[in-house]
């Protein structure tokens, strides 16, 4: 039961490494690729802290074996923005106090990113339903929902003026 060759595109960069098939994608991202943005929360696919984007889907990376990510296109929070150039969602989370302890935030923002790709003008209810796979124990969600709605409005504004 040796290691297998894993090839993925992570945050627009091609990576190639040797992994055991049983390694979880979250462990490969955090421990092999030093991408520690996505967090390990419940480890049982409930909390959504480990959410990443894989092949255009929001995925809980604690419930994906590395071997299943062969040839996958992956975006983590590190691929969405940087400290010098925050993503609109990151800006809006900051502005609307969409985080307190910050543990759920990378998963929350990565999920919100995919949600807005699929529905650029969601209602409040659609936002709440869309992030229902991500738990936050601090904010009570209100400001997260506000931040996502504000990001949607901002992204649509930019689109209109383009």
């Amino acid at each position: 039961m040796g290691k297998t060759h894993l090839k993925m595109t992570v945050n627009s960069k091609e990576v190639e490494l040797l992994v055991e098939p049983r390694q979880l994608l979250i462990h490969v991202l955090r421990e092999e690729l030093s991408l520690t943005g996505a967090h390990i929360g419940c480890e049982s696919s409930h909390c959504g802290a480990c959410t990443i984007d894989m092949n255009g889907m929001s995925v809980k990376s604690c419930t994906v074996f590395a071997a299943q990510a062969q040839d996958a296109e992956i975006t983590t929070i590190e691929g969405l923005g940087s400290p010098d150039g925050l993503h609109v969602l990151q800006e809006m989370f900051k502005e609307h106090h969409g985080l307190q302890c910050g543990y759920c935030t990378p998963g929350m923002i990565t999920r919100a990113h995919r949600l807005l790709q699929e529905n650029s003008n969601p209602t409040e209810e659609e936002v709440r339903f869309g992030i229902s796979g991500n738990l936050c124990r601090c904010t009570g969600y209100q400001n997260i929902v506000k931040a996502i709605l504000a990001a949607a409005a901002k992204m649509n504004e930019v689109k209109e003026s383009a």
Partner: protein
Amino acid sequence: MIASAFEYHKPDTVDGVVSLLSKWGDDARVIAGGHSLIPVMKQRMTDISHLIDLGGIAELKGISIDGDMITIGAMTTQHELITSEALAKAAPLIHEASLQIADPQVRYMGTIGGNVANGDPANDMPGLMQTLDATYHLTGPEGSRTVKARDFYEAAYFTAREDDEILTAISFAKPSGGFAYEKQKRKIGDYATAAAGVMITIEGGTCIAASVALTNLSDTPVYCAASVDALLGSSLDDATIKAAVTAAVDASDPVADTRGPVDFKKHVAGVIVKKAITSALARA
């Protein structure tokens, strides 16, 4: 939590899967979306030496609507079921039920085949498939065969599928009439405390076709023949609905767990079945 070591296989045909299953027998398991299997592997509650990934098999994917017959490939995800406009039009019951399964992330990965074949009584699709009177298509070393959803489930995690067979697709006649899938759960992402699928067709004020099935109220899904008998031929008056609800509750056999004691679950079953019948009736 890290699973025990296994050898990983990713064949690109159904025949390839079947030959691996024949070779490795009990030591092998297929993985579809993995959101039931991986958590169990991580907890080391199962021992699998050979994991066969179905993710590379194109013939297991997709929804086809051919006249009155709907066929859904086993590897079609719940997200794909929800976003298919053609399916939402042809079988809105599937759309309604799929939205109530787990959460968005799980629905991107979770498949209809995994959900029905796993045999977990808490999964929603088995009860839904019994409501629709669906047919399961299985392929093994001897070839292909079909089993009705209403005959497939034997006990929790025990089904009519042999170890060297895989479920490739499900099919059912395009449903008509009123429908509903009602589910009571503690929170999004939780399994049902009680859930029920109902279909009702009315002609000239009389119920001419009906179907009632339950989720997570026994060690298998429960098709409620006695409820259907009560509804058929009736005018669906209050007394009939009450009789159908009572028959469904009598057919249930829940066990006490973190979702509540038996009496509570039976109470919720009654509420949910009544809600589903009323809602299906309003749409009939």
